[in-house]
C-alpha cells in the first residue's frame, strides 16, 4: 500500500513547492492575487474582527439591545471589546452576547457564536469575552475552536505621529469590516493610568467601531477605539429603534432604543487589556470578599464637578505641581483638575475643548465611561505635545449634559506673580526635618507639608487651609514674612492625635488658590513610614473562613485549585482607596482599586484565587498599595514556580490557506485533508504510523475547496505535507519552508482523480 501510494504520487512531488505566490497542482501553477507583502496583515486583522451584539430575551426571541465591534485575541475564542456594550446595565440591559464573524471580508458579518464575559472592567470600558456556545446555544467543547486572532502588543511603545490603523464595523451589521489609517496626535493622562490613559487618532470613525482594534504598522493590536453612548433614558442620549421589541406590531418609542454614540477618535491603549487577557488565559478567578465596596462606589445622585483648575504638571502621586491661570508660549503639558462626586462606572463623561471658540479635537476627550471612584480629585491632561497659543475653554460633560467650564490662556508670557508649588507631606522630627514617602503618612499627632515659593513679596496675604474628609479643620491667614523664594514647612497637629483618613491642603496667595494636594493618614508609625498591612501571607485552605487559621505557606503543589491570601490591617479609614494587584511571574493579571470598607483596624482580610482545572504553575505575588505607594508584597510558588509556555499564544508566523480543486472540473473538492507534518518527520515516517503527534495541523476543505491552517506556522521550518482524499491521487512533499516576506500564503492545488 505504502509503495503504491508513493509511486502514484511521485509524479506530482516536484510540483509541490511553497513560497510567495506559489501554487500546488498536477496541472496549472497559477499565482494567487491575494498575497500581500505589507507587514500589516490586514486580511488577518479583518478576519479577527468581530461584530458584537448584546441581546435580551423576549418570549421566544432575542431583541438587540446594544452592539459594537470586537477583536479575536486567541485561537480558542477570546474576544477583546468594550465593556459598555456587553456588560448588562442600564444602557445595555441584554444578557445574551452574539458574535458575528467576517466570513467574507467584503460582506456583512454573519452571526456564528454566543459568548460569555470572562473578565471586565467597567471603568476602563474593557471586556474579554469567551466564545462558548454555538449560535443555537449549544456548548462548544473546550479547545475545539481554532479562530484567526491578532497579537496584543505593548501599547507603551506607541509614539506621537505613529501610524495606526483603526478596524471595526462601521454600521449596524449592514456593512463589512472597515479599516481606516491615521496617526497618533496626542496622549491623554488620567489618574492611575500614567501619561497614556488614552490615545487620540487623527481620524474619526463611526461609533459602532467602538470595541474594535487599533493596530501599529506591524499589525499588532495596540489599542481599542472607544466611545460610550449615553444611557437612552437620559436627556443627553441618542439611540435608534431597530425592532418591534414588544411585539405590538409597531416600531415606536415603546420599543427598545439601542444607544449610539458619535464619532470616535479616542483609543484605550492595549496595556490596560493585558491583565484581563492574562487572567482569562490562565483561567484564574479572583474571589474578593463581598464587603460592600461596590455599594460605597455607587453614585447616589447626579454627577457634580467643582474646583476646576489647571496645572502644568502632575507628580507621581497624581497631585498638581501648582495652580495656574495661564501658560507661557511653547508649553507642552497641561492638566485640568477637578473634584467630582456622584460618579459611577456607568457615567459617560466627556471633555470638550475649544481654542479661540473653535472645537479642538486634539485635546478633547470623546464620551467615555468613568474610570474613577464615586468622589474625589481627578485630572485630564496631556504632556509632550506642543500646545498652540490661544484662549482655551474646557467643558466637562456628564451623560451628554455640559456641567462645568474652565478657561485658560496659552501664550501670555511668563507669570511673574507670587507662586506656590510642589507640596509634599511628611513627618517632622525634632529638628524640623520632614521625612516620609510624600503622600501616605502614619497616624500620629502631626503632619507636615513642604512647598516651594517663588516671586513672593513681603506682606502679601497668604492662607493655608487644611481639610479632613472634605471638612475644613484648620485655617491660618497672615501676611508673608519669609523670603522671595525658597521652601517652607508648615504643620498641622492635634494633641489628641489626627484621625486616619483623607486630608487636603490648600494654599492661597492673596485670595487665589496657588497650590493644593491631598494626602492620607493610615497605619502605625514605623519611623516616618506607615505600617498599614501586616502579617500578609498565603495559606492553603478549603474556605475563606478556614484560611484565617491556616498556617502560612509559600509553596503549593502543581494543580492546586485554589489558594488564599490573608492579611491584617491597622488605622485604615473606611473610604480610603486601596489597591490590590496580583501578578504571576511578575506579570500583572489583576488590579482592583476600591474604597476600604472594613473597620479601621482588624484581622483576617482574605482574598482567594482559583481555577477549577488547577492554578497554572508560577510565582504568584500580591501587592497592596495606597495611592501610588506599595505597602506590601508577598510571594508564593505553585508547582515549579514558572508559567508554562503556550505554543499558540502568538499569532506571529505565516498563515497558510488555499483552495483544492478537481483538475478536470476546476471545482473545489469538499472534505480533502491537508495534513501538515511537523519538522521532525517526513511523509514516509508519517505514512508508517499515521500518528496525530506527528501532525502540526490538519485542515479540511469546505464546500468550495477552501482550507486554512488554524495556527501560524514558523518561519524557516521544514514541514512536510500530505494531501489525501478518497478517489483522488494523493500529493505529498517533504522539506519546504515558509518565507517571512510572504504573508499570507494562498495556494491553489489541483487533485487528479485516480
Amino acid at each position: 500500500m505504502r509503495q503504491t501510494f508513493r509511486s502514484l504520487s511521485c509524479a506530482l512531488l516536484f510540483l509541490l513547492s511553497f513560497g510567495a505566490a506559489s501554487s500546488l497542482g498536477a496541472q496549472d501553477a497559477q499565482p494567487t492575487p491575494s498575497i500581500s507583502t505589507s507587514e500589516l496583515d490586514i486580511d488577518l486583522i479583518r478576519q479577527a474582527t468581530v461584530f458584537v451584539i448584546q441581546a435580551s430575551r423576549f418570549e421566544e426571541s432575542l431583541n438587540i439591545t446594544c452592539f459594537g465591534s470586537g477583536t479575536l485575541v486567541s485561537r480558542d475564542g477570546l474576544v477583546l471589546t468594550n465593556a459598555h456594550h456587553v456588560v448588562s446595565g442600564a444602557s445595555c440591559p441584554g444578557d445574551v452576547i452574539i458574535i458575528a464573524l467576517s466570513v467574507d471580508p467584503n460582506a456583512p458579518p454573519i452571526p456564528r457564536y454566543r459568548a460569555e464575559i470572562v473578565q471586565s472592567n467597567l471603568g476602563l470600558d474593557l471586556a474579554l469575552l469567551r466564545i462558548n456556545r454555538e449560535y443555537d446555544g449549544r456548548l462548544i467543547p473546550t479547545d475545539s475552536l481554532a479562530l484567526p486572532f491578532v497579537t496584543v502588543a505593548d501599547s507603551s511603545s506607541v509614539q506621537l505621529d505613529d501610524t495606526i490603523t483603526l478596524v471595526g464595523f462601521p454600521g449596524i451589521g449592514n456593512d463589512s469590516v472597515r479599516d481606516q489609517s491615521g496617526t497618533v496626535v496626542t496622549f491623554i493622562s488620567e489618574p492611575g493610568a500614567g501619561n497614556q490613559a488614552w490615545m487620540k487618532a487623527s481620524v474619526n470613525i463611526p461609533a459602532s467601531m467602538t470595541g474594535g482594534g487599533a493596530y501599529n504598522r506591524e499589525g499588532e493590536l495596540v489599542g481599542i477605539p472607544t466611545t460610550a453612548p449615553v444611557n437612552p433614558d437620559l436627556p443627553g442620549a441618542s439611540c435608534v429603534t431597530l425592532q418591534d421589541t414588544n411585539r405590538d406590531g409597531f416600531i415606536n418609542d415603546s420599543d427598545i432604543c439601542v444607544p449610539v454614540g458619535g464619532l470616535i477618535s479616542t483609543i484605550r491603549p492595549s496595556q490596560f487589556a493585558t491583565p484581563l487577557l492574562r487572567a482569562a488565559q490562565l483561567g484564574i478567578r479572583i474571589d474578593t470578599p463581598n464587603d460592600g465596596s461596590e455599594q460605597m462606589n455607587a453614585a447616589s445622585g447626579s454627577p457634580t464637578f467643582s474646583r476646576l483648575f489647571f496645572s502644568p504638571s502632575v507628580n507621581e502621586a497624581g497631585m498638581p505641581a501648582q495652580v495656574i491661570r495661564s501658560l507661557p508660549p511653547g508649553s507642552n503639558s497641561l492638566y485640568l483638575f477637578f473634584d467630582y462626586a456622584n460618579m459611577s462606572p456607568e457615567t459617560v463623561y466627556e471633555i470638550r475643548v475649544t481654542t479661540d471658540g473653535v472645537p479642538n479635537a486634539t485635546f478633547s476627550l470623546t464620551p467615555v465611561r468613568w474610570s474613577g471612584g464615586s468622589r474625589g480629585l481627578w485630572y485630564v491632561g496631556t504632556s509632550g505635545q506642543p500646545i498652540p497659543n490661544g484662549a482655551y475653554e474646557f467643558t466637562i460633560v456628564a451623560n451628554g449634559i455640559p456641567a462645568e467650564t474652565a478657561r485658560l490662556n496659552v501664550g501670555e508670557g511668563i507669570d511673574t506673580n507670587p507662586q506656590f508649588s510642589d507640596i509634599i507631606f511628611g513627618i517632622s522630627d525634632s529638628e524640623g526635618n520632614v521625612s516620609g514617602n510624600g503622600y501616605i503618612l502614619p497616624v500620629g499627632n502631626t503632619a507636615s507639608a513642604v512647598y516651594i515659593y517663588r516671586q513672593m513679596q513681603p506682606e502679601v496675604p497668604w492662607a493655608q487651609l487644611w481639610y479632613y474628609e472634605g471638612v475644613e479643620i484648620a485655617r491660618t491667614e497672615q501676611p508673608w514674612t519669609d523670603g522671595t523664594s525658597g521652601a517652607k514647612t508648615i504643620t498641622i497637629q492635634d494633641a489628641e492625635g489626627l484621625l486616619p483618613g483623607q486630608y487636603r491642603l490648600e494654599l492661597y496667595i492673596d485670595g487665589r488658590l496657588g497650590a493644593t494636594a491631598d494626602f492620607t493618614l493610615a497605619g502605625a508609625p514605623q519611623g516616618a513610614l506607615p505600617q498599614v498591612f501586616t502579617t500578609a501571607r498565603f495559606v492553603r485552605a478549603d474556605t475563606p473562613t478556614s484560611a484565617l487559621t491556616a498556617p502560612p505557606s509559600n509553596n503549593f503543589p502543581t494543580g492546586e485549585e485554589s489558594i488564599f491570601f490573608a492579611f491584617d490591617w491597622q488605622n485604615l479609614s473606611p473610604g480610603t482607596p486601596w489597591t490590590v494587584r496580583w501578578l504571576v511571574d511578575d506579570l500583572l493579571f489583576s488590579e482592583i482599586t476600591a474604597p476600604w470598607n472594613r473597620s479601621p483596624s482588624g484581622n483576617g482580610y482574605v482574598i482567594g484565587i482559583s481555577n477549577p482545572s488547577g492554578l497554572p504553575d508560577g510565582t504568584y505575588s500580591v501587592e497592596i498599595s495606597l495611592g501610588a505607594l506599595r505597602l506590601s508584597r508577598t510571594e508564593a510558588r505553585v508547582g515549579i514556580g514558572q508559567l508554562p509556555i503556550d505554543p499558540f499564544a502568538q499569532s506571529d508566523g505565516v498563515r497558510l490557506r488555499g483552495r483544492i480543486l478537481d483538475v478536470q472540473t476546476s471545482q473545489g473538492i469538499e472534505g480533502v485533508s491537508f495534513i501538515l507534518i511537523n519538522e521532525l518527520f517526513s511523509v514516509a515516517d508519517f505514512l508508517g504510523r499515521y500518528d496525530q503527534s506527528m501532525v502540526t495541523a490538519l485542515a479540511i476543505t469546505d464546500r468550495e475547496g477552501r482550507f486554512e491552517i488554524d495556527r501560524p506556522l514558523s518561519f524557516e521550518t521544514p514541514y512536510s505535507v500530505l494531501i489525501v482524499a478518497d478517489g483522488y491521487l494523493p500529493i505529498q512533499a517533504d522539506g519546504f519552508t515558509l518565507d517571512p516576506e510572504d504573508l499570507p500564503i494562498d495556494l491553489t492545488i489541483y487533485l487528479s482523480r485516480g
Partner: protein
Amino acid sequence: MAAIVEIGQQQDQGNLRQRWSHYFVLAYAAVSIIVAVNLRISVLNETLPYSDVETGIRARYPVGWLIETGEDYVFQVRNVGRIGYKTSIQVSIRPVSLNTTTRNLLDALSLSRAQTLTAYRVLAIEDGLRIANDIPATRMRYVFVDVSPDATLQRIPIVVEAFDVIAIQEGQAIIMSFLADATTFEQERPAFERFINETDF
C-alpha cells in the same frame, strides 16, 4: 430495386495451440482479477497495531486512519482520506463504582452530549451483546449534526450516525464509539466490526 445480400457464417477454427492460448489468457485474466481483488481487499483491510500499557488495550486500526490520543479518550482513529465526515472510532474509559450500571453511563453520556452536539438524539439501546473475550456489552445508537467549528469556511453541517458499545470490566467502563456520515453508515460499519473483533482489553 432492393436486394438482399446474405452473409454466411464464417467459422474461424484456430489450431490447438491458439485455442489453448485463448484458454490460458482467459484463465490468466481470471486469476489476475481474483488476485487483484484479494490484493485490494487486503490493502483496504490492512491495519496497524496499537497498544496502551496503562489501560491494557490492544487494538488494530486501519491503515490511512489518523490516530490520536486525548484527555477525553484513550485514543481515536479517523479516516482522514474520506471525503465528507471523517469516519471515526474512539475508545474511552470511565471509572465506575459497584453501583454504576451501564444505563447510568449511557445517561451520563447523553446528558453531556446533549450540551455540545447539535440535534443530538438517541435512536436505540440494545443490551445482550458480546464482544471480545465474551464480555457482555450494551450498544447505544444515536445521531447528531456535525457543525464545523471553523467559522471562516463554508462547510455544510453533516448528519452523523453513531453508536457506542459499552462494556464494564474490572472496575472501569470501556466505551467504543463509531461515528460515520449517516448516508454511508452501514457501508462503513464493517470497519468497526473488524476493529471490535481485533481489540483486546
